[in-house]
């Protein structure tokens, strides 16, 4: 076991060994007749931050539970940290840090007791659990709440506590299922900042999100998931380059004032009609907007912006990420 880098003595997760941290081949997960994960392949490299971006019901949590070795694929094979989850579940889980989608803290207990009890499940000596808990609470900025009851914490604090708890065993691989869902922007940014620090320490992170900005900010590489399938894979910038034009012009049209068919299509590479607005994909948004105005297309509001992963998702699936 290597000692953690001196400048981050607190974080102290362990570097993942060589070889893929996670490898999934043809993984299917069915619940009765329902197929939640419909045959996916992916590999996570050591030290990488890997994301699953997809809307609710895409199969992200089902996949995370299989990586976390608490659920097994109906078909296909999975290897986590070079081992077989079916055979070596407890051993693998001892090297994972898991942040589940729903907080599973004991609300009756104090912050410190939650850390302590959890650390003991890893068979860590009592003194070590206490010392590490104190360090980790410092890391997630909860040291001053150590003796507070968890029920009294805000949503953002609970999330940070769940992350601190997941690091108690110096994991080699940390799984974060929708780490910031339901948090206000300030709490989200604080949490992202802690995750950057983990990443800087070389910890392998696997996260799911349905926020395209989170995926763009945090992930080195991600897969876009929809209805149990992976529809695209790559770095955030690469995915945007590959599946969307550089810019997007968002137009809000007056009710019932749709321009003659074909007009918008002439002005852009691709047109998406959403219930409340129209999106024009184009390599030069300003020029396209000028053309829209030049052609006299009636609109209430127009915004030019860079294309995002949201646009990639829309292009690939015809639907929006967050409804």
């Amino acid at each position, binding site marked *: 076991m290597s000692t953690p880098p001196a400048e981050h003595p607190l974080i102290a997760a362990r570097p993942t060994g060589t070889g893929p941290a996670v490898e999934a081949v043809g993984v299917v997960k069915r619940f009765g007749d329902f197929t939640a994960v419909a045959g996916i392949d992916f590999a996570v490299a050591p030290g990488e931050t890997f994301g699953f971006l997809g809307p609710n019901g895409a199969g992200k949590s089902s996949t995370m539970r299989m990586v976390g070795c608490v659920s097994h694929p109906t078909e296909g094979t999975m290897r986590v940290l070079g081992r077989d989850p079916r055979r070596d579940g*407890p051993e693998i889980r001892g090297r994972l840090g898991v942040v*589940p989608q729903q907080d*599973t803290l004991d609300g009756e207990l104090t912050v410190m007791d939650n850390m*302590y*009890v959890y650390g003991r*499940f890893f068979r860590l000596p009592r003194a070590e659990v206490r010392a590490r808990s104190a360090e980790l609470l410092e890391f997630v900025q909860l040291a001053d709440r150590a003796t507070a009851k968890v029920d009294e914490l805000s949503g953002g604090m609970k999330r940070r506590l769940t992350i601190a708890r997941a690091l108690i065993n110096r994991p080699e691989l940390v799984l974060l299922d929708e780490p910031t869902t339901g948090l206000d922007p300030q709490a989200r940014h604080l949490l992202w900042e802690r995750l950057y620090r983990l990443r800087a320490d070389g910890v392998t992170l696997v996260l799911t999100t349905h926020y395209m900005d989170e995926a763009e900010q945090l992930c080195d590489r991600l897969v876009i998931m929809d209805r149990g399938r992976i529809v695209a894979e790559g770095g955030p910038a690469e995915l945007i380059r590959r599946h969307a034009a550089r810019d997007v012009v968002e137009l809000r049209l007056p009710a019932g004032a749709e321009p003659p068919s074909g007009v918008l299509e002439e002005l852009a590479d691709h047109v998406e009609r959403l219930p409340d607005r129209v999106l024009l994909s184009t390599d030069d948004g300003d020029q396209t907007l000028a053309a829209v105005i030049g052609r006299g297309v009636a609109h209430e509001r127009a915004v030019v912006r860079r294309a995002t992963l949201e646009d990639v998702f829309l292009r690939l699936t015809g639907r929006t990420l967050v409804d």
Partner: protein
Amino acid sequence: MRVAAGRSAAVVEGLWVSYRHTWRATLVSSFLSPLLFLLAIGVGLGARIDSGGPVEGLTYAAFVAPGLLAATCMQVATFEATYPVMAGIKWFGTYRSILATPVGVPDLVAGRVAWIALRLTAVAAVFMVVTIPFGVSSGPLAVLALPAAVLTGLAVAAPIEAWAASRDDEQGFVGLFRFVILPMFLFAGTFFPVSQLPDWLQPVAWITPLWHGTELTRGFMTGAPDPLVPLHLAVLLVLAVAGTLAATVTYRRRLEP
């Protein structure tokens, strides 16, 4: 996957840390109420009953004390195997977080059963010590009443734990207490010998775990174990072991879909 003693011990430790926050709420049902029953019914009502002659050769207090011990263990066990299970699986999801660690379902279930055994041991030990002045235990065999009462509780708790883990919500728990636990408490030998039941009802009492547990506990506590000890032990052990195995199945179905 096998049970690892160290991992189950960690589960017990976690339950103990939680219990340190909630033990006050259990004082009345675990420790006080069986004593009040013994005072009111065993001693108070017993004074009237004893004037009509001994019950199975015992004073009424000596007859009812082991019955109350076994029945208290049954009730504490039933509570421990219902609401906390729903809380861990559903309300707080704490059991889900346990399974994200090296602890597996068999470790979790074994830890839970061990924890319930410890809780029952405390309940039974306090009862037996506090009732010494009443002279309701006699002979060296009386100490065996403690494990007998604990086993009675486990024989009830393990199958209920398996059942509770398969429930979607707590709706059924009230019915369990009302229609299963309470009738056993009233009619399975705690307050009067089941031989006083109508003939057709006696076989129903014989198949309840509480009857076997009460007979076993009473036999030891009064220093006169009945010849059916091996049968009582076997029934209770089978229920405890089968219930524990069944719980690993229902836990797995619920927590590791």
